[in-house]
C-alpha cells in the first residue's frame, strides 16, 4: 500500500512536471511567427461571441473587432490562424462552436486557393494549437497522411524542438492571449507594388471536389448549428486564376442564398487605398482594417439584429481589447508625430504612459523649450532626468555622479535612470538596453505601461 501511494505520488509529480514543460515548449498566441487566436478563444467565457470571422492572416489583419465593439457594442471575434486552410477553418469553427453560439459567421474564401501549406510553421500552428479532443485528432487526420500522424497526435516530437527559441512569454502568460479578440494589426504601410487588379474578371472557374465539399460542409454546419453563414474575401492582390475560383465560390453562394462579399472588388465602397491601407500586397494594415471593419459594421447593423453589449461586465475582454487597440493606435500617432514636444504632450495624455526626459552633455539651447512641458529654466539649467508617471512630472535624477533611479514597471521590465559620467549611453536603460539617442541634448523615452512596449525613443541635439 505504501509503495502504491509512493508510486501514485511520483506519477502525479511527473505528470505535473511534464504538463508544465509542455506548456513552456508549446506554440502560443503571442504575436510573431506562430499567431493563432485559439488561446484567446479558450479564455473567453461561454456564449458571448455574436459574430465570428474565420480565416488566415488576411482575416486577423483586416477585421478589428474592437471597432465593432466601440461603435455598436457587437461582440465579434477573429477565429484566425496564420495560413488557416480549409481543413483548419472547419475544425476551428467546430472548436469555437463548442463554447460559443454566434449568430453570424464570416468565412474568408482565401482557403479555397491552396491545398498544402507553403510554410512548415503553418502546418504546426494549425494542427497543434487546439486542446486535446476528438476535434484536435480530426484536424490532424484532415491534413496529414495516414501513417505519419503519430507525431502530430503526440505533439511532443514536434513541439520539443522549440527549446532553442523560448522567450519570456513561453514561461509567463502573454496578457493579450487572454483578452485579445483575435486581431493582429499591422501599423506599417506597403512599399509601392504592382497591383494586378484581377478581381474584376467575371469569368467563373470551377470548384474542385475538395473546395466544393468544404463549402457544402460549412453550409451543413451552419444549418446544424443555426448560424448565418457569410462568405467574404479579405483584400489581397488576387491573381487571375485565383479570381476564377473565387467567382465559382460566389456562384455557389448565390445558388445557396449565402451572402458573398468580395472586398477586392469593393475598394471604392470601402474607401480602400491599396498603398496607404495595406502593409504588404496581401494584408491590410490597421488603417485598412478600420475601413474594412466599418464596411462590415454597416452590414451587420442593417442586416442582423445584434444586441449592443456595451457596459455589460461579462464583456470585459472586449473593453480591454478596445483599450489595447487605442493604445496601439496612440502609439502609432506618437511615433509619427514629427515635433518632439508635440510627441511628448501626446504621450502624457495617454493612460499608463511613462515618459523620460534626460538632459545630457551640452544642452543649453534646449532649456527654453522645456517651458512648454512645465519645466522651468532654473530647474533645467543644471541638467537632470525627469519622469512623467501617474499624471505628473518629477525630477528624479540630478546630473551628479552616482545618482540612480530604478522604476520597476512590472515584475519583468525595469527602467533605470541614472547619471554616469563619461558614458551617456548608460543614462537611460530599459531592460538593460540603452534608450539614449543623443550625447548632447535632450533624450526622450516614451514607454506604454499598458501594452508593455517602448513607444519611441528620440533625441534632440543641442
Amino acid at each position: 500500500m505504501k509503495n502504491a501511494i509512493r508510486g501514485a505520488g511520483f506519477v502525479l509529480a511527473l505528470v505535473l512536471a511534464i504538463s508544465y514543460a509542455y506548456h513552456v515548449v508549446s506554440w502560443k498566441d503571442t504575436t510573431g511567427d506562430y499567431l493563432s487566436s485559439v488561446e484567446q478563444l479558450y479564455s473567453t467565457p461561454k456564449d458571448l461571441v455574436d459574430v465570428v470571422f474565420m480565416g488566415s492572416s488576411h482575416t486577423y489583419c483586416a477585421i478589428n473587432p474592437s471597432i465593432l465593439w466601440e461603435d455598436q457594442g457587437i461582440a465579434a471575434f477573429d477565429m484566425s490562424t496564420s495560413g488557416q486552410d480549409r481543413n483548419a477553418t472547419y475544425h476551428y469553427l467546430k472548436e469555437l462552436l463548442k463554447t460559443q453560439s454566434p449568430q453570424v459567421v464570416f468565412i474568408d474564401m482565401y482557403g479555397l486557393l491552396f491545398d498544402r501549406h507553403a510554410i512548415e510553421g503553418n502546418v504546426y500552428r494549425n494542427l497543434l494549437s487546439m486542446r486535446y479532443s476528438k476535434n484536435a485528432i480530426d484536424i490532424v487526420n484532415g491534413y496529414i497522411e495516414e501513417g505519419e500522424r503519430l507525431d502530430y497526435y503526440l505533439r511532443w516530437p514536434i513541439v520539443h524542438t522549440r527549446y532553442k527559441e523560448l522567450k519570456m512569454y513561453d514561461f509567463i502568460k502573454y496578457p493579450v492571449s487572454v483578452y485579445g479578440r483575435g486581431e493582429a494589426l499591422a501599423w506599417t504601410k506597403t512599399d509601392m507594388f504592382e497591383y494586378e487588379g484581377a478581381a474584376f474578371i467575371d469569368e467563373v472557374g470551377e470548384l474542385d471536389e475538395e473546395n466544393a465539399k468544404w463549402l457544402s460542409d460549412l453550409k451543413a454546419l451552419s444549418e446544424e448549428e443555426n448560424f448565418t453563414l457569410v462568405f467574404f474575401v479579405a483584400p489581397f492582390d488576387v491573381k487571375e486564376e485565383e479570381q476564377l475560383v473565387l467567382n465559382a465560390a460566389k456562384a455557389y453562394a448565390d445558388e445557396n442564398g449565402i451572402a458573398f462579399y468580395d472586398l477586392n472588388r469593393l475598394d471604392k465602397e470601402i474607401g480602400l487605398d491599396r498603398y496607404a491601407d495595406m502593409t504588404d500586397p496581401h494584408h491590410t494594415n490597421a488603417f485598412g482594417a478600420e475601413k474594412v471593419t466599418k464596411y462590415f459594421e454597416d452590414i451587420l447593423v442593417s442586416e442582423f439584429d445584434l444586441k449592443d453589449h456595451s457596459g455589460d461586465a461579462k464583456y470585459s475582454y472586449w473593453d480591454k481589447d478596445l483599450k489595447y487597440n487605442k493604445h496601439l493606435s496612440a502609439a502609432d500617432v506618437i511615433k509619427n508625430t514629427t515635433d518632439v514636444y508635440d510627441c511628448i504632450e501626446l504621450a502624457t495624455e495617454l493612460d499608463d504612459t511613462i515618459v523620460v526626459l534626460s538632459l545630457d552633455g551640452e544642452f543649453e539651447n534646449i532649456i527654453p523649450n522645456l517651458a512648454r512641458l512645465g519645466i522651468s529654466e532654473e530647474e533645467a539649467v543644471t541638467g537632470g532626468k525627469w519622469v512623467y508617471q501617474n499624471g505628473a512630472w518629477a525630477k528624479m535624477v540630478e546630473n551628479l555622479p552616482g545618482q540612480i533611479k530604478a522604476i520597476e514597471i512590472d515584475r519583468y521590465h525595469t527602467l533605470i535612470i541614472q547619471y554616469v559620467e563619461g558614458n551617456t549611453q548608460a543614462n537611460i536603460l530599459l531592460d538593460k538596453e540603452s534608450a539614449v539617442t543623443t550625447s548632447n541634448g535632450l533624450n526622450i523615452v516614451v514607454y506604454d505601461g499598458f501594452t508593455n512596449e517602448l513607444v519611441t525613443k528620440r533625441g534632440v541635439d543641442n
Partner: protein
Amino acid sequence: MSFNSFQFLVFFPIVVILYYAIPKKIRPIWLVIASYYFYMSWNAKYAVLILTSTIITYLSGILLGKAEKVSSRKWIVAGSFITNLGILVMFKYFAFFLSNLNKVLGILHVSAIDNPFSFVLPVGISFYTFQALSYTVDVYRHEIEPEKNFINYALFVSFFPQLVAGPIERSGNLLTQIQSVSKKKLFDYDKFVKGFSLMCWGMFVKMVIADRVAIFVDTVFNSIYNIGSVEALFGALGFTLQIYCDFSGYSLIAIGAANVMGFDLMENFNTPYFAESIQDFWRRWHISLSTWFRDYLYIPLGGSRCSKLRKYFNIMVTFLVSGLWHGAAWTFVIWGGLHGIYQIVGDLLRPVKKKVNELLKVNTEAFSFKFGRIITTFFLTVVAWIFFKAGSIGVAFRYLRALFTKWNPWVFFDSSLYEYGLDRPEAMILLWSILALFVVDVIRYKKGLNIGEFLVKQNLWFRWIVLIVLIVCCLVFGEYGIDFDSSQFIYFQF
C-alpha cells in the same frame, strides 16, 4: 521497436502490468510471446532465424544431457556451432567474404561471382547466436544442466530486454532465474525502482548525449577533406562519447527493463574510460562480450598459460575475431587488431616502464600517475575508434592525417566549431549533459554503485527530482521527432 520509440513506451508498460497480473507459472509464456512480438516488430520473417537457433541449441542441450561419449558430445557441440555460425555467416558475412573473394579474382583476371542473396542483416543476430552457443558449451562443460522446458529455454534466448543488443547473458545467470520465476518475490519494490532509474538514465545518455553528439560526429566525418586537427580531435572524441553513451545507454535500459520485471542481467559497462590500461578497458567495456570471448575463445585457445608467443597469438586471434564480430568490414578487423596490438605492446613494454619509473623515481601511487595512465589508455581507444567509425580504411587514414598534420588552434576562438551541426545552445546542452555523465561515472567508479543502486539508497524527494528531471530532459532536449532522423542504437547492426 527501439527502446526510444513510442511503440516501446506503450509496449513495455503493458508487458510489465500483465506480467505481474498473471499467475507466476505462465509468466515465462507471456514473456516469450512479448519477446517474439518485440523482435518481429523489426522484421517478422527473421523470427524464424531466432526460433531455428533456439531449437538447435535446445536439442543440442537435450542430446548433450543424454550423450556420454566424449566424441559424441563433441560432435553435438560441433553440429550446434556449425549450424548457428552458418546462419550468422550467411546473413552477416557472406557479402563481405564474397566481395573480398571477388577482389582476389579481379587480381587474377577472373570474372567476379554475383551474390545470389540480398539479405537485410537480422537485428541482433550476433547477440542471440552467441548467447545460444554459450548455452551449448556450458552444458557440454557440465556447468549447467540441460533445460528440458522449451518455453524456459526459448525465453532465455529471446528475452526481449537484451535480445537485440545484449548484454549477452549466460545460462548460469539468466536461465536459472527463468527456471525459478515461480519462486520469485511477487514484487520487488527496490529492484523496480532501481530498474526504472536505470531505464531513465539510459534514455538520457542515448537521446540527449549520444544522438546529439552524433550530429557533430557525422558532420565532421563527412567533411574529412576540409577539417583540421582540432575538428578531427573533437570528432574522434565525439565518437568516443557517442558510442559509449549509445551502447551503455542501451545496456542500461535493457538491465533496467529486466530489473523492473524482477530479473538481474549482468553488468555490461563499468566506467570504461577510467581504465588504466587496454586490458583494464576490456574488463570494463562490453563486459558480456569480452568475457564471452575470454571463456569461449581465448581460454580454449590456450589463454595466457602458455608461451609468450602463443599467448600473443591467442590475444590477436581473439581481438581480430572480436573486430569481425562487430561488423563485416576490414575497418572493424583493424579496430580489433589495434586493441590486440595495444595489449601485446603494453605487455612487452611493462618491464621497460617499470625500469623507467624506478630510474626517474616516479611515484606510482600518486593521482597524477594514475591519471596519466587513464589519459594514455583513453587516447589509444580514441585512435582505435576512428577505424570503427570510418566507412573505409582510406577514410580512416585520411582522418588520422587530418588529426596529426593540420594543426589549427584558431578554430577554438573563431566559433567555427559551431558550424558542424551543433550551435552554441546545443553545445551547452551537450556540455551540461556530459558533466552529469561524468558525475554518475565518478559515483560508479568511486562507490561502485550504478545510478539505479545509488538512487534507491537516496531519500524519496531526491530520487523523484532526479528521475523527473531526467524524463523531462529526454522529452525536451532529446534528439527525436519530426526533424530528427532517429538513429538506431549503433550496436543493433552487430
